[in-house]
């Protein structure tokens, strides 16, 4: 292991910028977030970046590391770089606010656009819906539900890059969990929303989202589920609601 890491960090704002190089002391079990924090504390106090929980729960510290989007708090330097060289940049497919901070407004607007809000069919006075853990719909939702909204899949998606209207893997993955929730009452509106231009049929099944998701989710599979569901609905086959 080298004693010093050679770290290039993007410095700039909405008008552009460039990489600045920093020499960061290498340590055992060092994460990318540790490296960025070291730079801000010891070399560049004005460096802007986001983080909160540092344990892979909050989804706020994602950045491009050596070309790939990663959750930086759970990514060890050793895993991202073999030769002690790091290039750290703000997430792709989102406008930069400053340095490593990007504007995630559109990313979250697309969640709403994809019908990601749960629409209850019952009130708190009704008995609780009994959904068994091994029901097929529950298992579909389970496979997709642990998303932390970090934006890694969105930044890694070439379809988002080519088609700015595309809702993206995270929003559609969320829609898939609700499509499988029988307590939700907005099923048909949701299927209709995600069938419009930029919806689930825009996905080219590149599977970058599945390869990059830090929580090992498979948004491609969720989107494939939505394609099947919308196709069946369009052909008038077996839709429950």
């Amino acid at each position: 292991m080298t004693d010093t890491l050679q770290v290039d960090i993007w410095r700039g704002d909405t008008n552009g910028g460039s990489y600045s190089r920093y020499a960061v002391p290498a340590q055992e079990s060092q994460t990318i977030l540790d490296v960025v924090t070291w730079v801000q504390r010891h070399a560049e106090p004005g460096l802007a970046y986001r983080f909160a929980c540092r344990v892979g729960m909050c989804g706020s510290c994602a950045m491009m590391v050596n070309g790939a989007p990663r959750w930086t708090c759970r990514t060890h330097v050793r895993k991202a770089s073999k030769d002690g060289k790091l290039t750290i940049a703000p997430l792709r497919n989102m406008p930069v606010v400053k340095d490593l901070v990007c504007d995630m407004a559109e990313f979250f607007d697309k969640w709403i656009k994809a019908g990601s809000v749960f629409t209850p069919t019952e009130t708190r006075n009704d008995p609780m819906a009994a959904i068994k853990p091994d029901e097929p719909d529950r298992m579909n939702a389970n496979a997709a539900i642990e998303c932390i909204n970090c934006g890694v899949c969105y930044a890694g998606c070439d379809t988002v890059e080519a088609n700015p209207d595309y809702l993206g893997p995270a929003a559609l993955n969320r829609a898939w969990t609700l499509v499988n929730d029988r307590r939700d009452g907005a099923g048909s509106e949701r299927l209709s929303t995600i069938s419009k231009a930029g919806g689930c049929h825009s996905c080219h099944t590149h599977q970058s989202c599945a390869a990059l998701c830090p929580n090992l989710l498979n948004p491609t599979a969720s989107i494939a589920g939505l394609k099947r569901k919308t196709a069946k609905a369009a052909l008038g086959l077996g839709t429950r609601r």
Partner: protein
Amino acid sequence: MVLGRGAEMLDLRLYLLQRLSAMVMAPLVLGHIGMMIYAAQGGLTASEILARTQGNQWWALFYGVFVLAAAIHATIGLRVVLHEYLKPPPRLLNSVALALFVCLVALGARAIMAVVL
């Protein structure tokens, strides 16, 4: 509920049409490859091939359906490529796609007529 009505559902309809045209093409591609191997391995001359195809309505139907399915399938794919790389306004995009479809059908029809008529 039946999805897919209205202009804003065009993407869904094209998605379905591309899958359906692929399903139609799959056996036709195999039949075409088989026929090519048979013709090439058997050493058939051009006139021998034409003798079998000319006036044969089954070959006309086989390749007629093939050309139509291929034109539909390819146009939908090219429309997406054009959309993502050049981002033209929707009306222009659909007009160009329609023109491509007409060209592909015309080329295919010309080829079929050349061997069937």
